[in-house]
């Protein structure tokens, strides 16, 4: 059975080597700007369809700016682009955006979705991950520097095993392995053998979905029903991670709750960590002594019955002296406690690496035969790298993924990029390239892009540039009421716009919605990196958690807000933030009343609207019409038309009057009217959709 399955699976399109595909000919030769356009147009022409016209420059600038850096273009940027008549004005914008540090914050966040990034454990015991942010910052930097994606992959899976040229590089590599460590874990599982296998399973599932678009987890209990992954292969891979240590120690001072691996950074990190640990241990021992002495003192204080009064008093005095001495010692030690070195979440090689036994029906209590560590046969074309007995095999897994499995990894990765830019992947099921996933709408284009991606050194920035400088990227998303005949044909033959004859309207993510609000109110703090969870208690949420800063008070870019798995900020919850428990290449886009309630009533939104209103009304001589124009430019990045202008003027007039009658005393009716106007524009669909 397994053999047959593997054979069947080899025929599946996603497991094929990359075909060398010629760029197809097109009839309308003046339309394409790039080869991508030729692939798309040829498919459209084959169905008798024709692309719609290009969008306007306001919309295009807004689209590309949000797509590349997750922020709105500023009024100055809009003016500059509108005034730039050079033929390559748009390419210049693209290059400016690709070079901006905001780019890594935007595209790094896309990867953090896939890496199920969080600053807390979630699940049963939601412990704070104090050091996860280093991985987040590593990811942002990797995208900003356009780290080749194959290298990015190797570092995340085997960074601790890669040769480093400097202590800084060693740290960078170590931080990268946070990828393996930040998953959610059922920490209070009392059966630790089971917990270890659950962690291995979570790691394999994440690697499978993130890089290969495959659900490996199914094969934990049975041969995969749809894809060519046998239980044997699953445990061959699992052996790599049972040979890797992810869990270590305990948390919450509770023997039942497992801890996780944290490793020191810095050239002298190891020694500093040792010194710190030794001091902490000493302090703990002293504290225990103190507690005991205090208990004895209490006993001595209450027990004055035995012996003479003087004897009792002496005992009391002696005991008091012991307590004071210990107290002084504790205080002294606390003062001179060395600072711990910077730490990161990571993994380490097991002391005794080795193969794993098959777990029958996934149970660690029913073990089958041992399976040598290895990889998935259906994806292996050459002799796979041999795993040495004294190492986990993660290094070899990383090699295998970027050689044998490279075609699939490249397809999955360029498809993720396509999904973010065009609103739907060429393979719509971005995390599922198996036989039950969606088939590519343009298989040749996907292979062309994957091949080019590899040839150009796995460069994400080059791929993005290639995609956004296509004609297809500039298409309009609108279907005017007076649609011409060709558009009507398109709508009849391809109502879902599968072949991309027009642009797909995209909803902004929670982060971009929040950042754009803060941007409109000039409140956005562009500080990069660093921890935002330092003040958290050991449990991020739960009965024992300390209350902490309300995330609505933070002004940093959203990518830096703490991601607490069981307690996301309200705006993230209502606007479909990624479920940080599983790799998420495609976020949901829902439309629920909770969003409307948030936009109408949240103090955060009202505060940003008021700050924006203050900016608009700061110059007393500016006419209202000009202020409205600026409001539109700031909030929806285009000027209002005549009708919108008069509607806004009428609204301001009416609202001012009503505000004067009905709002609490002390509220300035004019400021309130402008606040209401800005808030309405922030709440509008146009604010959070890219046309």
């Amino acid at each position, binding site marked *: 059975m397994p053999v047959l399955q593997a054979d069947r699976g080899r025929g599946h399109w996603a497991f094929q080597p990359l075909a060398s595909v010629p760029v197809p000919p097109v009839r309308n030769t003046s339309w394409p700007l790039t080869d991508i356009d030729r692939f798309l147009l040829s498919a459209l022409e084959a169905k008798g369809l024709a692309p719609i016209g290009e969008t306007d420059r306001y919309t295009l600038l807004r689209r590309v700016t949000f797509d590349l850096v997750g922020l709105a273009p500023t009024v100055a940027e809009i003016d500059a682009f509108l005034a730039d008549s050079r033929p390559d004005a748009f390419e210049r914008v693209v290059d400016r955006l690709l070079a901006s540090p905001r780019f890594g914050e935007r595209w790094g966040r896309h990867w953090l979705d896939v890496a199920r990034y969080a600053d807390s454990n979630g699940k*049963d015991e*939601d412990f704070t991950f104090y050091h996860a942010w280093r991985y987040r910052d590593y990811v942002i930097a990797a995208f900003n520097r356009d780290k080749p994606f194959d290298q990015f992959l190797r570092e995340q899976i085997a960074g601790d095993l890669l040769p480093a040229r400097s202590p800084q590089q060693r740290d960078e590599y170590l931080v990268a392995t946070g990828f393996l460590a930040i998953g959610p874990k*059922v920490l209070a599982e009392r059966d630790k053998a089971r917990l270890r296998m659950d962690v291995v399973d979570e790691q394999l599932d994440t690697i499978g979905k993130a890089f290969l678009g495959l659900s490996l987890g199914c094969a934990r209990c049975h041969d995969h029903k749809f894809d060519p992954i046998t239980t044997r292969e699953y445990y061959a891979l699992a052996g790599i991670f049972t040979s890797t240590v992810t869990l270590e120690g305990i948390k919450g001072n509770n023997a039942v709750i497992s801890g996780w691996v944290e490793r020191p950074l810095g050239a002298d990190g190891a020694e500093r960590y040792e010194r710190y640990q030794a001091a902490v241990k000493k302090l703990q021992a002293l504290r225990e002594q103190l507690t005991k002495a205090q208990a004895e003192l209490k006993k001595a204080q209450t027990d004055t019955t035995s012996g003479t009064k003087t004897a009792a008093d002496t005992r009391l005095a002696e005991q008091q002296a012991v307590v004071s001495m210990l107290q002084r010692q504790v205080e002294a030690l606390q003062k001179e406690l060395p600072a711990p070195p910077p730490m990161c979440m990571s993994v380490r090689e097991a002391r005794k690496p080795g193969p794993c036994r098959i777990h029958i029906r996934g149970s660690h209590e029913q073990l089958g035969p041992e399976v040598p560590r290895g990889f998935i046969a259906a994806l292996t074309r050459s002799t796979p790298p041999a795993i040495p007995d004294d190492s986990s095999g993660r290094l070899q897994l990383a090699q295998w993924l970027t050689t044998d499995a490279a075609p699939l990894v490249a397809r999955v990765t360029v498809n993720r990029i396509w999904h973010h830019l065009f609103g739907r992947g060429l393979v719509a099921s971005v995390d599922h390239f198996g036989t039950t996933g969606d088939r590519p709408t343009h298989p040749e284009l996907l292979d062309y892009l994957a091949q080019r991606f590899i040839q150009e050194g796995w460069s994400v920035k080059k791929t993005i540039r290639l995609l956004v400088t296509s004609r297809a990227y500039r298409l309009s998303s609108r279907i005017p009421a007076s649609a011409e005949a060709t558009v009507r044909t398109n709508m009849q033959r391809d109502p879902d716009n599968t072949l991309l004859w027009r642009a797909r309207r995209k909803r902004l993510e929670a982060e971009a919605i929040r950042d754009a609000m803060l941007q409109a109110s000039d409140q956005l703090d562009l500080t990069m990196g660093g921890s935002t969870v330092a003040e958290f208690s050991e449990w991020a949420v739960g009965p024992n958690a300390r209350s902490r800063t309300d995330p609505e008070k933070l002004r940093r870019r959203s990518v830096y807000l703490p991601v607490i798995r069981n307690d996301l900020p309200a705006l993230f919850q209502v606007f479909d933030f990624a479920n940080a428990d599983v790799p998420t290449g495609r976020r949901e886009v829902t439309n629920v009343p909770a969003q409307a*309630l948030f936009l109408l009533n949240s103090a955060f939104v009202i505060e940003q609207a008021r700050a924006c209103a203050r900016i608009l009304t700061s110059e007393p001589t500016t006419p209202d019409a000009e202020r409205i124009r600026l409001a539109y430019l700031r909030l929806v990045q285009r000027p209002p038309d005549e009708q919108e202008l008069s*509607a806004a003027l009428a609204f301001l007039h009416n609202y001012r009057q009503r505000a004067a009658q009905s709002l609490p005393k002390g509220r300035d009716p004019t400021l309130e009217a402008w606040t209401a106007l800005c808030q309405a524009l922030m709440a509008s669909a146009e604010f959070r959709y890219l046309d």
Partner: protein
Amino acid sequence: MHIMTRREWLCRTACGFGYLALAGLATQAHVTSSPLSARPPHHRPRARRVLFLFMHGGPSHVDTFDYKPMLAKYDGQDIPYQLTKLLSQGTGRKLMASPWKFRQYGGSGLWVSELFPHLARHADRLCVIRSMHTDGQSHGQAVLMLHTGSENQTRPSMGSWIVYGLGTENHNLPGFVTICPPRGHGGTQNYGSAFLPAIYQGTALGHAGTPASAAQIRHLHHPYAPRDVQRLQLDFLQGVHARHLQRTGPDDQLEGVIQSFELAFRMQRVAPEVLDLSRESAATRRLYGVDEKPTDDFARQCLMARRLIEAGVRFVQVSHSFKWDQHGDLRRGHARNALEVDKPIAALLTDLQARGLLEDTLVLWGGEFGRTPMAQGKDGRDHNPQGFTMWLAGAGVKPGYAFGATDDFGHKAVLHPVHMHDLHATILWLLGLDHERLTFRYGGRDFRLTDVHGRVVTDILA
């Protein structure tokens, strides 16, 4: 009413076609079908809605509804079974008698301990499952198992599955409301929708630690603008939308946004009315124990739950916050907990019955697991997922009935064991849903609340 004032205003400002188009849209908004529209079940339902009384922490079955005379007889002696190695430190083999007396009540003769004197009067309404067992020896796992059917995978919660299956009966309210849910032990996952569309997720009113009197839907009110002033703003916003729609051509997403604002605005009016306990008579408030110590908090939760159920909310949960975890000091802890919930729950059953709501409402009571018959320390009990008690009442279940049994000491479910998956399957069945057919396709696979398990416990069906 609101439509009229808006129309008047629209006519006055006379800004053209977009606004007029909007007026039409807004009036239609509530008739268009949505993913929350009530949907026909798979078979004839016995229950239309569920009210779950969650006792977070794990109440001890052998001290409440599972009478074990042998436990008293062998008090202080070793339990004669092999025990799981996963018990907490300090849990030995020594059996500990219940500090509370049991009596039989009603025509059914159900055994109830003196911890629940008020509830005992409803003995003939209860359908007690004494043979529950579940997965997860720790709270987090067992709480997630109870709420989502999985102790270690992220799965949609029971309430979200039910709203996904049946839709809701009141469009001005969420279909699934959870009052003061736990923050730890899975937190939001316990009412989340995981991979189901977010529209099916539970709406939380406060959370554990919030006084029930302060528990409300988030962002339900503008901080200071009265309703008519906000309507003015909303009309302007809908005008912006209408113009957008006119410029870009027909679009489902935009129309969805327009509708969601109207729904939210209606919800702002309806929800506070439903949750306003001052609309209840003094007699009813007294019956539940509102404004009395120590029942006030849970009484308010129960009364809000009844009002939500009455208003057509499909799934309502109230949570007695993490209080039942008596690893020590069982006597005092359980006595205090029971005092807080006994009277309100009894009042809830009386009230539901009086209003005819018990006929089609399924009430479910229980914790994530039970407690060991063995002592932990000198006066506590440890977690026990191997055997415990939950009870149901109301729609479709046998009244005054006890089903299944644990062993002589109450350690393991031995007669007709009912796994948590089975309970889930049974709840869905009562609602007219076949747990094997209520599926959602995600990541290339069909998922269900009961994973690949679960069977309907037909013996408890009326």
